[in-house]
Every structure is written in C-alpha cells, then in structure tokens.
C-alpha cells in the first residue's frame, strides 16, 4: 500500500516512473515565500554559471596550450576591465541591443500579417511557402552586397539584413502554430458567424500563441545572428560600433581574450532576453491554458 499523506514539500520523492502533474500550491505567497521563490528561480542558472566558469578555469590551468590561445577567466576579466573602462564595450552592446530589438520588432510587425496571409490563401502558401523556408536557409552575408548597393552604408543596410533573416523564421513559426490549432476551432468560428478577420484576431492568433512564441524565440535568434553578420560590414562613420564589429576585431587581432569576452557578452544578453521576455511570457501563456512547461513549475 502506498500512502499519500499531506506533505507539500517532498519534491524529490517522486517515485520512479510516475508522471504526476504538479499539484497546485495551497498557501498564499508571503513576503518570505516570495523571496525564497525568487532565489529558487535565480539559483539554478547562477549555479550553472559558477560550475561552467570553474570548469573553464580548471581547463585553462590544466591545458598545455599557450595562454593567448586558451585564455582563462582571469584574462577575460582583464580584457573586460579594459574595454569597459574605455567605454567601447558598453556602447557597442547598447548599439547592438537597440538594433537587434528594434529590428526584431519591425520583423514581427511585417512577418505576422504575411504569415496570416500565407495561412489563409492556399495558392499563396503553395507558391511562396517553400520560398520562405528557403529564405530562412540563406545566410545573412549573402544579402550584404545587395543591401549595400540599395541602401548604402546606413543603418538601413543593417536593418535590411536583420529583417531578411528574421522575417522568414517568424513566418514559419506562426504558420506552424496555426497548423497545430485543433480543427474544431475553425468549425467553432464558422458556427459563431465570425468573419475571417474576426476568426484570425479572436480565435486563430490566441490559439496559435504558444507555438508563435516559440517561433518568435527562433526569430529573435535569427535577427540577432543576422545583426552580427551585418555589423561585420563596416565600423564607425555613419554606422555605430556594434558587438559584431568588436568580435571581428578580436578575430582579426587573434585576441582570443576579446573573442571570449564578446561571446560571454552575447550569451549574457541572450540569457537576459530569455529570462526577462520569452520564458515568463511562455510560462504565463501555458499556465493560462492549464499547461505547464515541465521544468519550470517552481
């Protein structure tokens, strides 16, 4: 006989092979609880970072390679001090972040209606759908010569490259979300007398939202990566110095400390965007529908 007694806190006790939906929490959140919760949320990623940095330090000590070929955390910290000190890194990060976010938002605004058009106009989807998937595959650098010829050396070139990278990905994400909508919802819209636009706004988009968010996450990745490609074109002058230019600089100078630093900065930006934007959004969405991301139920 197994006895389930009223014990709210035996997280680790889950018997082998039992796939239990997480029980809901009975108590009201108090101040102390909330603090503990925030800590519980922040602790695992922090632990991951600490573990990774330690491994890195150990590897760099143990490695027989020359220091400049395998910079350790200390070296990178020193590089960080230098480029933060002279202000180049913060300003580059701010420039890139602004371009990335604004480009992503523009891509979103353009891609969403396109995706809806593809989802609803069957011949359009058959005609253009494969092309969209193919555009996703086209590397950003391929657009650079054309973009320079059309837009010159302005921010418009950079945005063009970002958009061409992010738009196909967002379109595909939304299409996938729409395709997975239970077919009953279409019947429901029909029966409720929804006009097409009402169906889209009131039923289809909300229903596709969880899939859409995961498409947006990929779209964000594409727009950021395209931005990095665009920032390699040129530096200074009318184009502000971005993180991508710094990365290129590090590669040109074979300065692996700088390269590692930029990688860390990009990772940090990615983690922050994920933790502040996508993860909470997705969690709220799923929770509102009685689903819960399995790893994120704390």
């Amino acid at each position: 006989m197994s006895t389930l007694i009223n014990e709210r806190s035996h997280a680790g006790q889950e018997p082998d092979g039992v796939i239990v939906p997480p029980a809901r929490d009975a108590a009201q959140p108090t101040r102390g609880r909330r603090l503990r919760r925030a800590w519980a949320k922040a602790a695992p990623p922090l632990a991951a970072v600490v573990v990774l940095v330690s491994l890195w330090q150990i590897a760099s000590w143990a490695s027989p390679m020359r220091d400049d070929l395998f910079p350790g955390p200390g070296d990178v910290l020193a590089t960080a001090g230098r480029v933060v000190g002279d202000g180049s890194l913060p300003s580059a990060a701010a420039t890139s972040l602004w371009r990335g976010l604004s480009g992503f938002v523009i891509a979103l605004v353009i891609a969403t209606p396109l995706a809806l058009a593809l989802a609803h106009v069957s011949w359009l989807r058959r005609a253009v759908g494969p092309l969209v998937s193919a555009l996703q595959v086209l590397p950003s650098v391929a657009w650079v010569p054309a973009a320079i010829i059309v837009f010159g050396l302005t921010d418009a070139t950079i945005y063009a490259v970002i958009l061409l990278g992010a738009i196909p990905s967002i379109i595909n994400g939304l299409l996938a979300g729409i395709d997975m909508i239970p077919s009953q919802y279409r019947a429901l819209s029909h029966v409720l007398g929804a006009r097409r636009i009402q169906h889209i706004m009131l039923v289809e988009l909300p229903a596709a939202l969880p899939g859409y968010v995961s498409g947006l996450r990929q779209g964000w990745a594409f727009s950021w990566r395209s931005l990095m490609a665009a920032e390699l074109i040129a530096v200074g002058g009318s184009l502000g110095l971005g993180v991508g230019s710094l990365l290129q600089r590090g590669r040109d100078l074979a300065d692996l400390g700088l390269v590692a630093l930029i990688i860390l900065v990009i990772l940090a930006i990615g983690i922050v965007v994920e933790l502040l934007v996508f993860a909470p959004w997705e969690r709220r969405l799923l929770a509102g529908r009685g689903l819960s991301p399995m790893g994120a139920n704390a």
Partner: protein
Amino acid sequence: MSVELSETTLRYGDGPIVLDGLTESIRPGEFVALLGASGCGKSSLLNMLAGLLEPTGGSIDVPDDGAAFMFQDPTLLPWLSAQGNVELALRLAGVPRAERSVRARELIDLVQLGHAREKKPHEMSGGMRQRVALARALAQQRRLLLMDEPFAALDAITRDMLHEELRAIWQRTGMTIVFVTHNVREAIRLAGRILVLSSHPGRVIDTRTITDDFRADPARAAALAAELTDVLRKEQFKHEHLDQ
C-alpha cells in the same frame, strides 16, 4: 425558415456510406429530436445542417444566417474564462459591447454557473464545461439551434432545470431546434417530433409526433419510451447479425 433535406447522402472519403438519401423537412419553430445508435451519423447530420460539412449527394437548405450549434464536446477556448467564452459568442453575434457583459452574466446564471464565471475551462468539471457551451449556443440567438447531446454530462437535477429553461426559451423565441440525445425520455419530454435513425447506413426508420397532451400523460409517455427503445433495440440487433 425551414430546413429541407432532399436525398442527402454522406460518406467520408471512400469509407462506407454514413447517411443514405435522407429526405426530411423541418418547419420553422419545430423542436426535433434525433435518436439513433452510437456512430449512426447524428453528429454528421448536424454538421451538414451547420454548413461544416458538405453532403456527398443530394442537397440541404438551411436558413441563410446559419445555425447556432452546441457541439458534442464543449470546444471552449482555453484562454478565455466561462464569461469570456460566452461574451465572444455575443460579440460575434453583433451584440454591442455595452450589453455583452450583462447578457453573458444572465446566460451563465441560467446554466447555474454564477459561482464559476471567471473559471478557465481547465478549472471546470466536465458538466460545467458543457453548461458553458450551452450558454454560448444560446448566446448566438439564431433562428436555428442545433444541439448535440447537450445534457449528457449533467446530473438529473441540473438537467431537469435546464429542460425547463430550454423549453421556455423555445416558446418565447419560436426558434427551430434540432437536438441529438441518447435519452429517449428526454426526447419525449422536449421534442415535438422524434426522428429515429438506423445505422450503416443512416436512414430515418421511424418518426413520431408528440403533442403537449401526450407529454402530459406519464403513462403514455412511458409507453412511447418503451416502444422507441424497442425500435432502437430491434434495429441494433438486426445489425449485430449482419455484422457477424
């Protein structure tokens, strides 16, 4: 606005014929019940009446403004509360914004869910979800109302209350109602006419008209229930012998 079926035939893909040459006419304001074995094609017929499915043969005439439809499963939108689901139907029916909230409250109260107004579908019991779907169907206010086993998940008491409400609404609005049920007594209690469908393929094998006098007499109603059950049983046994 009457509903006219003429030689309506349906099959899915290259499967067996589901409905075979139905010819039937439903007058405006009629209250019709469909009885038939599980899988005989009742839901498919309602789907055709709602314009969700095209007949493979024959034709169907329905009112231009379409039909309100309560599906066999509730099909609530999971991101909306009970109130939200009903309000959506009102919005799509063109009810002005100001009235929606009040009307939705009334409908939710009607189905006894006043205490669960803000619950999301995943926080409701099966019967509660079915009642929200009922409220939503009533919110549509069409001249034709299709209902697919609307009370199947409800307890006898709630069901009784909702029977009363439904008849009251029908009498007040004069709408046409076609509903599917497996409960023979429910059919007798509510409907003005009962159509019994056979299965494999579905044809109308029996039609009964029920007057209010008839309904008022429990003994005659019970006798009819027994008789209809027998019709269904015979039909099904015939089948079993064909099948095996």
